[in-house]
């Protein structure tokens, strides 16, 4: 029974952290290269423009929910299950979500990299 809670927490963490990463990446692409903007307008313009992007706040909120799901998940399941399972599934979910929602071209090179890293994260927890 406890396992179901742990996997529910893992599912929630993967869902919210992927949503957060995609929203934050989308927002920063809308803002554009912040290094360039910093050189032209100064650091305040960078902060102002990032904060005025509505999807940025949504992304932060999703990251916050992911963080608290992790805390509650850790109280239901083992550290050695929750952290590696959610981290490696997030790598795969991010590759799929970036392809669908951000229209990134996830070629063979990036798929292999994402799967190598996801596999490595699992092994590190064994």
């Amino acid at each position, binding site marked *: 029974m406890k396992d179901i809670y742990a996997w529910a927490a893992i599912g929630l963490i993967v869902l919210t952290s992927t949503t957060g990463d995609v929203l934050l*990446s989308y927002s920063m*692409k809308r803002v*554009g*290269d912040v290094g360039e903007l910093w050189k032209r307008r100064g650091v305040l313009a960078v902060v102002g423009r990032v904060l005025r992007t509505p999807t940025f706040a949504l992304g932060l909120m999703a990251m916050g929910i992911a963080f608290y799901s992790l805390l509650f998940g850790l109280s239901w399941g083992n550290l050695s299950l929750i952290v590696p399972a959610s981290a490696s599934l997030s790598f795969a979910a*991010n590759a799929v979500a970036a392809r669908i929602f951000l229209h990134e071209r996830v070629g063979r090179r990036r798929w292999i990299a994402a799967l*190598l*890293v996801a596999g*490595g994260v699992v*092994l*590190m927890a064994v």
Partner: protein
Amino acid sequence: MTFRKYLVLAGITVFATAGDSLLARGMKDLGNVNVSLHNLSALLLAILNPWVTAGILLLLAFFACYMSALSWADLTYVLPATSLYYVLVALIARFGFHEEISPTRWLGIALIAAGVGFVAAGPSVTPSRRHLDSHEPCRDAVSQEVKS
């Protein structure tokens, strides 16, 4: 990719590792805290610990670098390229906190390092399919300014 951009990617891994290590060091002072609503005050007071405060400041630096990287590189590039974080954390656990690292863990470290090398050797940003299809120029605020 310029040298400055590689520095930002390195900043993501280093700040995240150092921030997490300082947090771990600070939380050891507090002893075992069961994460639940009853211990909320203990968790809130944890930020007064100097190690924890320093850790949070470094994690803020990590977040700034992460946002900067996402402004000029693909998400599917930034995430694998900065996963050396897992390797650095393991090394700090081994040599800083004297935790044991099993052979399977070393194998995991090797896989992650291989993944990082794989993605870092490729392009950091790919033209989106939508832009390619319609030959539409980049619509982000900064590139429009640069043009005008």
